Protein backbone atom coordinates (compact mmCIF):
# COMPACT_ATOMS: atom_id res chain seq x y z
CA UNK A 1 0.00 0.00 0.00
CA UNK A 2 2.55 2.47 1.05
CA UNK A 3 5.27 3.19 -1.43
CA UNK A 4 8.49 1.33 -1.06
CA UNK A 5 11.26 2.24 1.28
CA UNK A 6 13.01 4.61 -1.11
CA UNK A 7 12.55 8.29 -0.80
CA UNK A 8 8.78 8.35 -0.77
CA UNK A 9 8.45 11.50 -2.73
CA UNK A 10 10.61 14.51 -3.55
CA UNK A 11 9.74 16.92 -0.81
CA UNK A 12 11.48 19.83 -2.44
CA UNK A 13 9.59 19.33 -5.64
CA UNK A 14 6.27 19.21 -3.91
CA UNK A 15 7.07 22.25 -1.83
CA UNK A 16 8.11 24.11 -4.94
CA UNK A 17 4.92 23.15 -6.64
CA UNK A 18 2.79 24.24 -3.75
CA UNK A 19 4.63 27.49 -3.36
CA UNK A 20 4.31 28.21 -7.03
CA UNK A 21 0.58 27.69 -6.90
CA UNK A 22 -0.10 29.48 -3.66
CA UNK A 23 2.57 32.14 -3.78
CA UNK A 24 2.69 31.90 0.01
CA UNK A 25 5.17 30.43 2.41
CA UNK A 26 4.55 26.91 3.68
CA UNK A 27 5.00 25.77 7.20
CA UNK A 28 7.20 22.85 7.91
CA UNK A 29 5.10 19.76 7.46
CA UNK A 30 2.45 21.00 5.14
CA UNK A 31 3.85 19.11 2.25
CA UNK A 32 3.68 15.84 4.13
CA UNK A 33 0.05 16.34 4.85
CA UNK A 34 -0.54 17.38 1.31
CA UNK A 35 1.16 14.25 0.20
CA UNK A 36 -1.05 12.30 2.54
CA UNK A 37 -4.00 13.93 0.96
CA UNK A 38 -2.57 13.15 -2.41
CA UNK A 39 -2.12 9.54 -1.48
CA UNK A 40 -5.74 9.37 -0.45
CA UNK A 41 -6.70 10.98 -3.68
CA UNK A 42 -4.61 8.55 -5.64
CA UNK A 43 -6.11 5.64 -3.78
CA UNK A 44 -9.56 6.74 -4.63
CA UNK A 45 -8.62 7.55 -8.19
CA UNK A 46 -7.13 4.15 -8.79
CA UNK A 47 -10.04 2.43 -7.13
CA UNK A 48 -12.60 4.24 -9.18
CA UNK A 49 -10.60 3.92 -12.34
CA UNK A 50 -10.39 0.20 -11.77
CA UNK A 51 -14.12 0.00 -11.28
CA UNK A 52 -14.79 2.08 -14.36
CA UNK A 53 -12.35 0.05 -16.40
CA UNK A 54 -13.96 -3.18 -15.33
CA UNK A 55 -17.38 -1.85 -16.13
CA UNK A 56 -16.41 -0.64 -19.57
CA UNK A 57 -13.69 -2.87 -20.90
CA UNK A 58 -13.91 -5.98 -18.80
CA UNK A 59 -10.52 -7.12 -17.67
CA UNK A 60 -8.67 -3.95 -18.54
CA UNK A 61 -8.65 -2.48 -15.04
CA UNK A 62 -6.88 0.81 -14.68
CA UNK A 63 -6.30 2.30 -18.08
CA UNK A 64 -5.67 5.78 -19.28
CA UNK A 65 -9.22 5.94 -20.51
CA UNK A 66 -10.75 4.86 -17.25
CA UNK A 67 -8.56 7.30 -15.35
CA UNK A 68 -9.67 10.06 -17.63
CA UNK A 69 -13.23 9.09 -17.03
CA UNK A 70 -13.13 9.20 -13.27
CA UNK A 71 -10.59 11.88 -12.52
CA UNK A 72 -13.03 14.73 -12.85
CA UNK A 73 -15.25 13.29 -10.17
CA UNK A 74 -12.32 12.47 -7.94
CA UNK A 75 -10.90 15.94 -8.19
CA UNK A 76 -14.29 17.36 -7.37
CA UNK A 77 -14.51 15.06 -4.40
CA UNK A 78 -11.21 16.38 -3.14
CA UNK A 79 -12.10 20.00 -3.22
CA UNK A 80 -11.51 21.80 -0.03
Amino acid at each position, binding site marked *: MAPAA*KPPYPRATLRKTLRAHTNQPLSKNVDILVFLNYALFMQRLIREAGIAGKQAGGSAGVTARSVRKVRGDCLRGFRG
Partner: protein
Amino acid sequence: MSESARKKQRTSTRESEGQDGTEGTLYADLHAHAHLNPKPVTPFRRAASAGVTPNSRRTPNVPIRTPGTGARTPRGGPATRPIPSRRTAPTTPHAIRALRERAHAARTPGHTRRRSGRIQRETPRDILRDLSRVLARNTQPTEPHLQARPPRNSALDFPEIEDGPDPAVPRLSMPLEDMYDDDSIHEAPPRQSLLPHLPDDVDNGTIQSLEFGRRAISEDPRMFGTRVSERFADLTELGMDGEEYEIDGTFINRRQTLDPQHAFQEGTDDDTTTDIRALTGRRDGRPSDVDLGVFGDLDDEVDEPTFRFTIPQRIQAAAPEDQDEEEGLDASAYDERQNGVYNDEPLIDEQADDNEAGEAAATAEGEDATGVFEAIGWESEHDVEDDAELEAYREETSAIDRSLQTQSPERPTDATKAPRRQRRELMVSAHGLEYPSFPAAVVKRLATGFAKSQGSNGKLSKDTVAVLAQTSDWFFEQVSEDLAAYARHGGRKMIEESDVIAIMKRQRQITSNSTVFSLAQKLLPRELLQQLRMEPLPKAKGQRQKRKRMETIDEES
Protein backbone atom coordinates in the same frame (compact mmCIF):
# COMPACT_ATOMS: atom_id res chain seq x y z
CA MET B 1 -60.78 75.61 -42.39
CA SER B 2 -57.93 77.60 -41.10
CA GLU B 3 -55.68 75.64 -43.39
CA SER B 4 -57.53 76.79 -46.35
CA ALA B 5 -57.08 80.33 -45.18
CA ARG B 6 -53.41 79.81 -44.85
CA LYS B 7 -53.15 78.30 -48.21
CA LYS B 8 -54.88 81.15 -49.74
CA GLN B 9 -52.38 83.50 -48.26
CA ARG B 10 -49.59 81.43 -49.50
CA THR B 11 -50.89 81.22 -52.97
CA SER B 12 -51.18 84.92 -53.04
CA THR B 13 -47.59 85.41 -51.99
CA ARG B 14 -46.44 82.79 -54.36
CA GLU B 15 -48.14 84.47 -57.23
CA SER B 16 -46.59 87.78 -56.39
CA GLU B 17 -43.17 86.27 -56.08
CA GLY B 18 -43.50 84.37 -59.26
CA GLN B 19 -44.23 87.54 -61.06
CA ASP B 20 -41.49 89.44 -59.35
CA GLY B 21 -38.59 87.02 -59.64
CA THR B 22 -36.60 86.76 -62.78
CA GLU B 23 -37.14 83.55 -64.65
CA GLY B 24 -33.58 82.39 -64.56
CA THR B 25 -33.20 82.11 -60.80
CA LEU B 26 -33.26 78.84 -59.02
CA TYR B 27 -35.93 80.21 -56.82
CA ALA B 28 -38.21 80.77 -59.76
CA ASP B 29 -37.51 77.33 -61.11
CA LEU B 30 -38.39 75.75 -57.85
CA HIS B 31 -41.56 77.69 -57.73
CA ALA B 32 -42.49 76.52 -61.11
CA HIS B 33 -41.92 72.95 -60.04
CA ALA B 34 -43.96 73.48 -56.94
CA HIS B 35 -46.79 74.66 -59.14
CA LEU B 36 -46.60 71.63 -61.31
CA ASN B 37 -46.75 69.21 -58.42
CA PRO B 38 -50.12 67.96 -57.26
CA LYS B 39 -51.71 69.31 -54.16
CA PRO B 40 -51.00 67.49 -50.94
CA VAL B 41 -53.53 65.17 -49.44
CA THR B 42 -54.51 66.59 -46.13
CA PRO B 43 -55.02 64.29 -43.20
CA PHE B 44 -58.42 65.65 -42.64
CA ARG B 45 -59.67 64.13 -45.80
CA ARG B 46 -58.00 60.88 -45.10
CA ALA B 47 -59.54 60.59 -41.72
CA ALA B 48 -62.90 61.30 -43.17
CA SER B 49 -62.51 58.66 -45.79
CA ALA B 50 -61.33 56.15 -43.26
CA GLY B 51 -64.45 56.46 -41.29
CA VAL B 52 -67.77 55.09 -42.39
CA THR B 53 -69.00 57.86 -44.60
CA PRO B 54 -71.70 58.32 -47.18
CA ASN B 55 -70.90 58.16 -50.84
CA SER B 56 -70.86 61.86 -51.24
CA ARG B 57 -67.54 62.01 -49.46
CA ARG B 58 -65.83 59.56 -51.68
CA THR B 59 -66.29 61.41 -54.85
CA PRO B 60 -64.12 64.34 -53.86
CA ASN B 61 -61.52 62.03 -52.49
CA VAL B 62 -60.85 60.03 -55.57
CA PRO B 63 -59.60 62.74 -57.88
CA ILE B 64 -57.28 64.15 -55.29
CA ARG B 65 -55.70 60.87 -54.35
CA THR B 66 -54.87 59.77 -57.83
CA PRO B 67 -52.28 61.98 -59.35
CA GLY B 68 -53.83 61.91 -62.80
CA THR B 69 -57.03 63.50 -61.73
CA GLY B 70 -55.34 65.59 -59.14
CA ALA B 71 -53.56 67.63 -61.74
CA ARG B 72 -55.22 70.87 -61.13
CA THR B 73 -54.15 74.32 -61.74
CA PRO B 74 -52.50 75.74 -58.68
CA ARG B 75 -55.03 78.40 -58.43
CA GLY B 76 -57.93 76.05 -58.68
CA GLY B 77 -56.57 73.92 -55.84
CA PRO B 78 -57.15 76.18 -52.92
CA ALA B 79 -60.35 77.38 -54.43
CA THR B 80 -61.89 73.97 -54.66
CA ARG B 81 -60.45 72.77 -51.46
CA PRO B 82 -62.54 74.19 -48.73
CA ILE B 83 -65.63 72.90 -50.34
CA PRO B 84 -65.44 69.23 -49.25
CA SER B 85 -64.55 70.19 -45.72
CA ARG B 86 -67.60 72.30 -45.54
CA ARG B 87 -69.67 69.65 -47.04
CA THR B 88 -68.83 67.10 -44.43
CA ALA B 89 -71.52 66.54 -41.95
CA PRO B 90 -70.05 64.23 -39.36
CA THR B 91 -72.38 61.37 -38.74
CA THR B 92 -70.28 58.79 -36.96
CA PRO B 93 -68.96 59.52 -33.47
CA HIS B 94 -65.45 58.94 -34.68
CA ALA B 95 -65.72 61.52 -37.37
CA ILE B 96 -67.30 63.93 -34.94
CA ARG B 97 -64.48 63.56 -32.53
CA ALA B 98 -61.99 64.01 -35.28
CA LEU B 99 -63.64 67.18 -36.37
CA ARG B 100 -63.60 68.50 -32.87
CA GLU B 101 -59.95 67.79 -32.49
CA ARG B 102 -59.34 69.58 -35.68
CA ALA B 103 -61.23 72.58 -34.40
CA HIS B 104 -59.20 72.55 -31.24
CA ALA B 105 -56.10 72.40 -33.28
CA ALA B 106 -57.27 75.41 -35.18
CA ARG B 107 -57.58 77.34 -31.95
CA THR B 108 -54.13 76.50 -30.76
CA PRO B 109 -51.41 79.11 -31.17
CA GLY B 110 -50.29 79.64 -34.67
CA HIS B 111 -46.71 78.40 -34.69
CA THR B 112 -47.46 75.04 -33.11
CA ARG B 113 -50.39 74.46 -35.35
CA ARG B 114 -48.41 75.34 -38.35
CA ARG B 115 -45.65 73.07 -37.35
CA SER B 116 -47.93 70.12 -36.88
CA GLY B 117 -49.53 70.78 -40.18
CA ARG B 118 -46.19 70.96 -41.86
CA ILE B 119 -45.17 67.63 -40.53
CA GLN B 120 -48.23 66.12 -42.00
CA ARG B 121 -47.72 67.76 -45.34
CA GLU B 122 -44.50 66.18 -46.45
CA THR B 123 -45.04 66.23 -50.16
CA PRO B 124 -42.45 66.97 -52.83
CA ARG B 125 -44.29 70.13 -53.59
CA ASP B 126 -43.78 71.39 -50.04
CA ILE B 127 -40.20 70.35 -50.01
CA LEU B 128 -39.59 72.33 -53.11
CA ARG B 129 -41.39 75.24 -51.63
CA ASP B 130 -39.33 75.13 -48.49
CA LEU B 131 -36.23 74.98 -50.54
CA SER B 132 -37.31 77.96 -52.53
CA ARG B 133 -37.85 79.86 -49.31
CA VAL B 134 -34.45 79.04 -48.06
CA LEU B 135 -32.85 80.27 -51.21
CA ALA B 136 -32.35 83.94 -51.76
CA ARG B 137 -35.29 85.36 -53.59
CA ASN B 138 -33.56 87.94 -55.63
CA THR B 139 -30.52 86.08 -56.81
CA GLN B 140 -29.29 86.68 -60.27
CA PRO B 141 -29.44 83.90 -62.80
CA THR B 142 -26.31 81.81 -62.78
CA GLU B 143 -25.42 82.02 -66.40
CA PRO B 144 -22.09 83.80 -65.97
CA HIS B 145 -20.79 80.92 -63.84
CA LEU B 146 -21.95 78.37 -66.33
CA GLN B 147 -20.15 80.22 -69.02
CA ALA B 148 -16.99 80.50 -66.99
CA ARG B 149 -16.61 76.78 -66.46
CA PRO B 150 -16.63 75.30 -69.95
CA PRO B 151 -13.39 76.99 -71.05
CA ARG B 152 -11.56 75.27 -68.19
CA ASN B 153 -12.96 71.98 -69.25
CA SER B 154 -11.79 72.46 -72.75
CA ALA B 155 -8.37 73.34 -71.49
CA LEU B 156 -8.25 70.01 -69.71
CA ASP B 157 -9.12 68.11 -72.86
CA PHE B 158 -12.55 67.17 -71.72
CA PRO B 159 -14.67 68.64 -74.47
CA GLU B 160 -17.53 66.19 -74.08
CA ILE B 161 -18.10 66.82 -70.43
CA GLU B 162 -21.65 67.59 -69.39
CA ASP B 163 -22.27 71.24 -68.87
CA GLY B 164 -24.11 70.58 -65.63
CA PRO B 165 -22.07 72.29 -62.96
CA ASP B 166 -22.28 69.60 -60.31
CA PRO B 167 -20.04 66.86 -61.72
CA ALA B 168 -17.50 69.35 -62.92
CA VAL B 169 -16.78 70.97 -59.59
CA PRO B 170 -14.95 68.19 -57.73
CA ARG B 171 -12.74 67.45 -60.67
CA LEU B 172 -11.80 71.03 -61.08
CA SER B 173 -10.75 71.20 -57.51
CA MET B 174 -7.94 68.79 -58.26
CA PRO B 175 -4.80 70.10 -59.92
CA LEU B 176 -4.85 67.70 -62.80
CA GLU B 177 -1.98 69.20 -64.68
CA ASP B 178 0.28 69.03 -61.68
CA MET B 179 -0.68 65.45 -61.23
CA TYR B 180 0.60 64.50 -64.62
CA ASP B 181 3.79 66.35 -63.96
CA ASP B 182 4.20 64.49 -60.72
CA ASP B 183 3.89 61.20 -62.47
CA SER B 184 6.66 61.98 -64.81
CA ILE B 185 8.76 63.07 -61.88
CA HIS B 186 8.07 59.94 -60.01
CA GLU B 187 9.14 57.61 -62.71
CA ALA B 188 12.15 59.29 -64.09
CA PRO B 189 14.72 60.37 -61.54
CA PRO B 190 15.93 57.37 -59.58
CA ARG B 191 16.82 55.37 -62.60
CA GLN B 192 18.25 58.19 -64.56
CA SER B 193 20.35 59.64 -61.84
CA LEU B 194 21.87 56.40 -60.65
CA LEU B 195 22.02 53.93 -63.46
CA PRO B 196 21.17 55.64 -66.70
CA HIS B 197 21.93 52.90 -69.18
CA LEU B 198 19.76 50.15 -67.91
CA PRO B 199 17.14 48.91 -70.30
CA ASP B 200 13.73 48.34 -68.86
CA ASP B 201 13.68 44.60 -69.04
CA VAL B 202 16.80 44.16 -66.98
CA ASP B 203 16.06 42.59 -63.67
CA ASN B 204 17.47 45.28 -61.50
CA GLY B 205 15.97 44.25 -58.23
CA THR B 206 19.28 44.71 -56.50
CA ILE B 207 21.01 46.98 -58.92
CA GLN B 208 18.51 49.75 -58.65
CA SER B 209 19.34 50.31 -55.07
CA LEU B 210 23.06 50.60 -54.93
CA GLU B 211 23.04 48.52 -51.84
CA PHE B 212 23.05 44.84 -52.49
CA GLY B 213 20.03 42.88 -51.57
CA ARG B 214 20.17 41.34 -48.17
CA ARG B 215 21.00 37.70 -48.40
CA ALA B 216 21.70 34.86 -46.16
CA ILE B 217 25.31 34.69 -45.15
CA SER B 218 25.64 31.61 -47.23
CA GLU B 219 24.78 33.60 -50.33
CA ASP B 220 27.53 36.01 -49.67
CA PRO B 221 27.57 38.99 -52.00
CA ARG B 222 31.11 38.12 -52.74
CA MET B 223 29.81 35.34 -54.89
CA PHE B 224 28.15 37.89 -57.12
CA GLY B 225 31.04 40.29 -57.05
CA THR B 226 31.99 42.49 -59.91
CA ARG B 227 35.66 41.74 -60.25
CA VAL B 228 36.54 39.34 -63.00
CA SER B 229 38.85 37.33 -60.89
CA GLU B 230 36.24 36.99 -58.23
CA ARG B 231 33.73 35.87 -60.72
CA PHE B 232 36.11 33.37 -62.00
CA ALA B 233 36.65 32.17 -58.56
CA ASP B 234 32.94 31.85 -58.17
CA LEU B 235 32.80 29.65 -61.15
CA THR B 236 35.51 27.51 -59.80
CA GLU B 237 33.70 27.54 -56.59
CA LEU B 238 30.70 26.19 -58.38
CA GLY B 239 32.86 23.63 -59.97
CA MET B 240 34.15 22.78 -56.58
CA ASP B 241 30.63 22.34 -55.52
CA GLY B 242 30.08 19.69 -58.07
CA GLU B 243 33.42 18.20 -57.25
CA GLU B 244 33.18 18.33 -53.53
CA TYR B 245 33.72 14.74 -53.00
CA GLU B 246 36.59 14.76 -55.30
CA ILE B 247 38.53 15.99 -52.39
CA ASP B 248 37.32 13.08 -50.48
CA GLY B 249 38.60 10.92 -53.18
CA THR B 250 42.11 12.24 -52.91
CA PHE B 251 41.89 12.16 -49.23
CA ILE B 252 40.83 8.62 -49.22
CA ASN B 253 43.57 7.91 -51.66
CA ARG B 254 46.13 9.28 -49.38
CA ARG B 255 44.91 7.23 -46.55
CA GLN B 256 44.44 4.35 -48.88
CA THR B 257 41.28 3.10 -47.37
CA LEU B 258 39.04 2.98 -50.37
CA ASP B 259 41.35 2.15 -53.20
CA PRO B 260 39.24 -0.32 -55.10
CA GLN B 261 36.43 2.15 -55.40
CA HIS B 262 38.81 4.74 -56.64
CA ALA B 263 39.33 2.68 -59.74
CA PHE B 264 35.74 3.28 -60.77
CA GLN B 265 36.01 6.99 -60.47
CA GLU B 266 37.76 7.44 -63.78
CA GLY B 267 34.91 6.16 -65.85
CA THR B 268 31.99 8.20 -64.62
CA ASP B 269 31.40 11.89 -64.60
CA ASP B 270 28.64 14.28 -63.77
CA ASP B 271 27.08 16.47 -66.41
CA THR B 272 27.06 19.58 -64.37
CA THR B 273 30.61 19.16 -63.28
CA THR B 274 31.81 18.75 -66.82
CA ASP B 275 29.99 21.87 -67.80
CA ILE B 276 31.58 23.79 -65.05
CA ARG B 277 34.93 22.47 -65.88
CA ALA B 278 34.43 23.59 -69.41
CA LEU B 279 33.70 27.02 -68.06
CA THR B 280 36.60 27.11 -65.75
CA GLY B 281 39.05 25.43 -68.02
CA ARG B 282 39.64 22.50 -65.75
CA ARG B 283 38.76 19.25 -67.33
CA ASP B 284 40.84 16.80 -65.52
CA GLY B 285 39.19 16.73 -62.16
CA ARG B 286 38.53 13.28 -60.94
CA PRO B 287 34.90 12.31 -61.06
CA SER B 288 33.37 11.88 -57.71
CA ASP B 289 30.23 9.91 -58.22
CA VAL B 290 31.58 6.67 -56.99
CA ASP B 291 32.75 8.22 -53.82
CA LEU B 292 29.34 9.64 -53.46
CA GLY B 293 27.95 6.22 -53.68
CA VAL B 294 29.86 5.44 -50.55
CA PHE B 295 28.37 8.33 -48.67
CA GLY B 296 24.87 7.91 -49.88
CA ASP B 297 23.27 10.59 -47.79
CA LEU B 298 25.06 13.28 -49.74
CA ASP B 299 23.94 12.11 -53.14
CA ASP B 300 21.12 14.57 -53.57
CA GLU B 301 23.38 17.54 -53.17
CA VAL B 302 25.47 16.65 -56.13
CA ASP B 303 22.53 15.68 -58.26
CA GLU B 304 21.09 19.12 -57.90
CA PRO B 305 21.40 20.88 -61.23
CA THR B 306 21.16 24.39 -59.84
CA PHE B 307 24.25 25.91 -58.40
CA ARG B 308 22.71 28.42 -56.13
CA PHE B 309 20.98 25.76 -54.28
CA THR B 310 23.96 23.58 -53.70
CA ILE B 311 26.29 26.24 -52.48
CA PRO B 312 24.42 27.20 -49.36
CA GLN B 313 23.74 23.56 -48.71
CA ARG B 314 27.38 22.76 -48.54
CA ILE B 315 28.25 25.73 -46.48
CA GLN B 316 25.51 25.27 -43.98
CA ALA B 317 26.40 21.69 -43.58
CA ALA B 318 29.97 22.70 -43.09
CA ALA B 319 29.60 25.30 -40.39
CA PRO B 320 28.49 23.28 -37.38
CA GLU B 321 30.81 20.42 -38.08
CA ASP B 322 33.69 22.78 -38.26
CA GLN B 323 32.81 24.03 -34.91
CA ASP B 324 32.71 20.57 -33.53
CA GLU B 325 36.11 19.78 -34.78
CA GLU B 326 37.57 23.01 -33.63
CA GLU B 327 36.71 22.23 -30.10
CA GLY B 328 38.95 19.22 -30.20
CA LEU B 329 41.88 20.96 -31.81
CA ASP B 330 44.50 23.33 -30.56
CA ALA B 331 44.85 26.93 -31.59
CA SER B 332 47.63 26.46 -34.07
CA ALA B 333 45.69 24.02 -36.16
CA TYR B 334 42.79 26.41 -36.00
CA ASP B 335 44.93 29.22 -37.36
CA GLU B 336 46.18 27.04 -40.10
CA ARG B 337 42.72 26.23 -41.09
CA GLN B 338 41.82 29.83 -41.24
CA ASN B 339 44.11 30.16 -44.19
CA GLY B 340 41.89 28.24 -46.42
CA VAL B 341 41.21 24.59 -45.82
CA TYR B 342 37.96 25.31 -44.25
CA ASN B 343 36.11 23.98 -47.23
CA ASP B 344 37.42 20.58 -46.67
CA GLU B 345 36.63 20.21 -43.05
CA PRO B 346 33.12 18.86 -43.33
CA LEU B 347 34.22 16.32 -45.80
CA ILE B 348 36.90 15.20 -43.49
CA ASP B 349 34.35 15.01 -40.78
CA GLU B 350 32.10 12.84 -42.78
CA GLN B 351 34.96 10.63 -43.50
CA ALA B 352 35.75 10.45 -39.89
CA ASP B 353 32.20 9.55 -39.09
CA ASP B 354 32.18 6.72 -41.52
CA ASN B 355 35.63 5.39 -40.90
CA GLU B 356 37.58 5.31 -37.70
CA ALA B 357 37.23 8.73 -36.22
CA GLY B 358 40.56 9.02 -34.51
CA GLU B 359 42.61 8.14 -37.54
CA ALA B 360 40.82 10.52 -39.76
CA ALA B 361 41.17 13.38 -37.35
CA ALA B 362 44.85 12.73 -37.04
CA THR B 363 45.37 12.72 -40.75
CA ALA B 364 43.29 15.78 -41.14
CA GLU B 365 45.39 17.63 -38.67
CA GLY B 366 48.49 16.53 -40.39
CA GLU B 367 47.12 17.80 -43.64
CA ASP B 368 46.27 21.09 -42.15
CA ALA B 369 49.64 21.55 -40.61
CA THR B 370 51.69 20.71 -43.66
CA GLY B 371 50.07 21.81 -46.86
CA VAL B 372 46.93 23.75 -46.67
CA PHE B 373 45.74 22.98 -50.11
CA GLU B 374 46.79 19.44 -50.31
CA ALA B 375 43.29 18.46 -49.56
CA ILE B 376 41.99 20.02 -52.71
CA GLY B 377 43.50 17.21 -54.48
CA TRP B 378 42.45 17.40 -58.05
CA GLU B 379 43.54 20.94 -58.41
CA SER B 380 46.84 20.78 -56.68
CA GLU B 381 47.83 17.59 -58.34
CA HIS B 382 46.67 18.08 -61.88
CA ASP B 383 46.36 21.77 -62.47
CA VAL B 384 49.85 22.77 -61.76
CA GLU B 385 50.15 24.84 -64.92
CA ASP B 386 47.58 27.57 -64.18
CA ASP B 387 48.96 28.82 -60.94
CA ALA B 388 47.62 32.30 -61.09
CA GLU B 389 44.12 31.07 -61.43
CA LEU B 390 44.68 28.68 -58.64
CA GLU B 391 45.98 31.43 -56.48
CA ALA B 392 42.92 33.48 -57.18
CA TYR B 393 40.81 30.53 -56.35
CA ARG B 394 42.61 29.93 -53.14
CA GLU B 395 42.26 33.47 -52.06
CA GLU B 396 38.63 33.44 -52.84
CA THR B 397 37.91 30.31 -50.92
CA SER B 398 39.83 31.59 -47.98
CA ALA B 399 37.88 34.80 -48.03
CA ILE B 400 34.62 32.95 -48.05
CA ASP B 401 35.80 30.68 -45.37
CA ARG B 402 36.75 33.56 -43.19
CA SER B 403 33.30 34.93 -43.57
CA LEU B 404 32.05 31.57 -42.57
CA GLN B 405 34.33 31.37 -39.62
CA THR B 406 33.02 34.53 -38.16
CA GLN B 407 29.53 33.18 -38.42
CA SER B 408 30.08 29.63 -37.45
CA PRO B 409 30.68 29.96 -33.72
CA GLU B 410 27.22 31.39 -33.18
CA ARG B 411 25.18 28.71 -34.77
CA PRO B 412 26.50 25.63 -33.03
CA THR B 413 26.16 27.22 -29.62
CA ASP B 414 22.51 27.86 -30.32
CA ALA B 415 22.11 24.36 -31.53
CA THR B 416 23.67 22.96 -28.41
CA LYS B 417 21.80 25.19 -26.02
CA ALA B 418 18.36 24.44 -27.38
CA PRO B 419 18.06 20.76 -26.41
CA ARG B 420 19.37 21.45 -22.93
CA ARG B 421 16.55 23.83 -22.33
CA GLN B 422 14.06 21.36 -23.59
CA ARG B 423 15.07 18.76 -21.08
CA ARG B 424 13.67 20.67 -18.14
CA GLU B 425 10.02 21.25 -18.62
CA LEU B 426 8.84 23.76 -16.13
CA MET B 427 5.23 24.67 -15.91
CA VAL B 428 4.20 28.14 -14.92
CA SER B 429 1.58 28.63 -12.29
CA ALA B 430 -1.06 31.30 -12.21
CA HIS B 431 1.26 33.42 -10.11
CA GLY B 432 3.90 33.33 -12.80
CA LEU B 433 6.19 31.05 -10.83
CA GLU B 434 7.79 28.11 -12.45
CA TYR B 435 7.35 24.72 -10.93
CA PRO B 436 8.34 21.23 -11.91
CA SER B 437 5.68 18.70 -12.60
CA PHE B 438 5.38 15.96 -10.04
CA PRO B 439 7.73 13.15 -11.03
CA ALA B 440 6.02 10.40 -12.92
CA ALA B 441 8.07 7.73 -11.17
CA VAL B 442 6.56 8.62 -7.83
CA VAL B 443 3.12 8.70 -9.33
CA LYS B 444 3.65 5.34 -10.87
CA ARG B 445 4.99 3.81 -7.71
CA LEU B 446 2.09 5.07 -5.69
CA ALA B 447 -0.50 4.10 -8.25
CA THR B 448 0.99 0.68 -8.75
CA GLY B 449 0.88 0.09 -5.04
CA PHE B 450 -2.77 1.06 -4.90
CA ALA B 451 -3.63 -0.96 -7.94
CA LYS B 452 -1.97 -4.01 -6.46
CA SER B 453 -3.80 -3.57 -3.22
CA GLN B 454 -6.98 -3.61 -5.19
CA GLY B 455 -6.22 -7.00 -6.53
CA SER B 456 -5.33 -6.25 -10.12
CA ASN B 457 -1.91 -7.08 -11.48
CA GLY B 458 -0.79 -3.56 -10.82
CA LYS B 459 0.65 -2.96 -14.22
CA LEU B 460 0.07 0.47 -15.61
CA SER B 461 0.72 1.40 -19.17
CA LYS B 462 2.75 4.40 -20.06
CA ASP B 463 -0.13 6.57 -21.11
CA THR B 464 -1.98 5.62 -17.97
CA VAL B 465 0.92 6.88 -15.94
CA ALA B 466 1.02 10.01 -18.02
CA VAL B 467 -2.64 10.64 -17.36
CA LEU B 468 -2.14 9.96 -13.69
CA ALA B 469 0.77 12.38 -13.54
CA GLN B 470 -1.29 15.02 -15.24
CA THR B 471 -4.13 14.39 -12.86
CA SER B 472 -1.83 14.69 -9.88
CA ASP B 473 -0.55 18.00 -11.19
CA TRP B 474 -4.12 19.16 -11.35
CA PHE B 475 -4.71 17.85 -7.90
CA PHE B 476 -1.79 19.75 -6.45
CA GLU B 477 -2.91 22.88 -8.15
CA GLN B 478 -6.39 22.51 -6.76
CA VAL B 479 -5.19 21.66 -3.27
CA SER B 480 -2.77 24.54 -3.13
CA GLU B 481 -5.41 26.95 -4.30
CA ASP B 482 -7.65 25.71 -1.55
CA LEU B 483 -4.85 25.95 0.96
CA ALA B 484 -4.11 29.49 -0.05
CA ALA B 485 -7.77 30.35 0.33
CA TYR B 486 -7.87 28.77 3.78
CA ALA B 487 -4.77 30.57 4.95
CA ARG B 488 -6.12 33.84 3.65
CA HIS B 489 -9.35 33.18 5.44
CA GLY B 490 -7.47 32.56 8.65
CA GLY B 491 -5.61 35.81 8.24
CA ARG B 492 -2.28 34.09 7.86
CA LYS B 493 0.31 34.36 5.22
CA MET B 494 1.88 31.08 6.07
CA ILE B 495 0.10 27.95 5.05
CA GLU B 496 -0.02 25.65 8.03
CA GLU B 497 -0.86 22.08 8.77
CA SER B 498 -4.20 23.12 10.15
CA ASP B 499 -5.19 24.25 6.71
CA VAL B 500 -4.47 20.87 5.26
CA ILE B 501 -6.31 19.21 8.08
CA ALA B 502 -9.26 21.49 7.49
CA ILE B 503 -9.23 20.54 3.83
CA MET B 504 -9.12 16.88 4.66
CA LYS B 505 -12.00 17.33 6.99
CA ARG B 506 -13.95 19.03 4.32
CA GLN B 507 -13.16 16.13 2.10
CA ARG B 508 -14.45 13.78 4.77
CA GLN B 509 -11.12 12.08 4.88
CA ILE B 510 -10.77 12.87 8.53
CA THR B 511 -13.77 11.69 10.40
CA SER B 512 -14.40 10.48 13.86
CA ASN B 513 -13.15 7.08 12.79
CA SER B 514 -10.03 8.13 10.99
CA THR B 515 -7.62 10.72 12.26
CA VAL B 516 -4.74 12.25 10.42
CA PHE B 517 -2.44 9.84 12.13
CA SER B 518 -4.38 6.78 11.34
CA LEU B 519 -4.43 7.79 7.72
CA ALA B 520 -0.78 8.65 7.79
CA GLN B 521 -0.01 5.36 9.36
CA LYS B 522 -1.85 3.60 6.65
CA LEU B 523 -0.53 5.52 3.73
CA LEU B 524 2.72 7.20 4.51
CA PRO B 525 6.13 5.62 4.90
CA ARG B 526 7.70 5.60 8.26
CA GLU B 527 10.07 8.52 7.78
CA LEU B 528 7.31 10.84 6.90
CA LEU B 529 5.21 9.54 9.70
CA GLN B 530 7.93 10.28 12.16
CA GLN B 531 8.42 13.73 10.82
CA LEU B 532 4.76 14.31 11.06
CA ARG B 533 4.60 12.99 14.53
CA MET B 534 7.46 14.90 15.93
CA GLU B 535 5.93 18.27 15.77
CA PRO B 536 2.20 18.19 15.78
CA LEU B 537 1.58 16.19 18.88
CA PRO B 538 0.00 19.18 20.62
CA LYS B 539 -1.85 19.84 17.45
CA ALA B 540 -3.32 16.38 17.58
CA LYS B 541 -4.91 17.22 20.87
CA GLY B 542 -6.20 20.46 19.55
CA GLN B 543 -7.45 18.61 16.59
CA ARG B 544 -9.53 16.32 18.68
CA GLN B 545 -11.08 19.30 20.28
CA LYS B 546 -11.68 20.70 16.91
CA ARG B 547 -13.27 17.52 15.81
CA LYS B 548 -15.98 17.99 18.32
CA ARG B 549 -16.66 21.37 16.87
CA MET B 550 -16.25 20.09 13.42
CA GLU B 551 -19.82 20.33 12.35
CA THR B 552 -19.79 24.07 12.70
CA ILE B 553 -16.31 24.51 11.39
CA ASP B 554 -17.21 22.62 8.29
CA GLU B 555 -19.69 25.12 7.08
CA GLU B 556 -17.42 27.98 7.94
CA SER B 557 -14.49 26.80 6.03
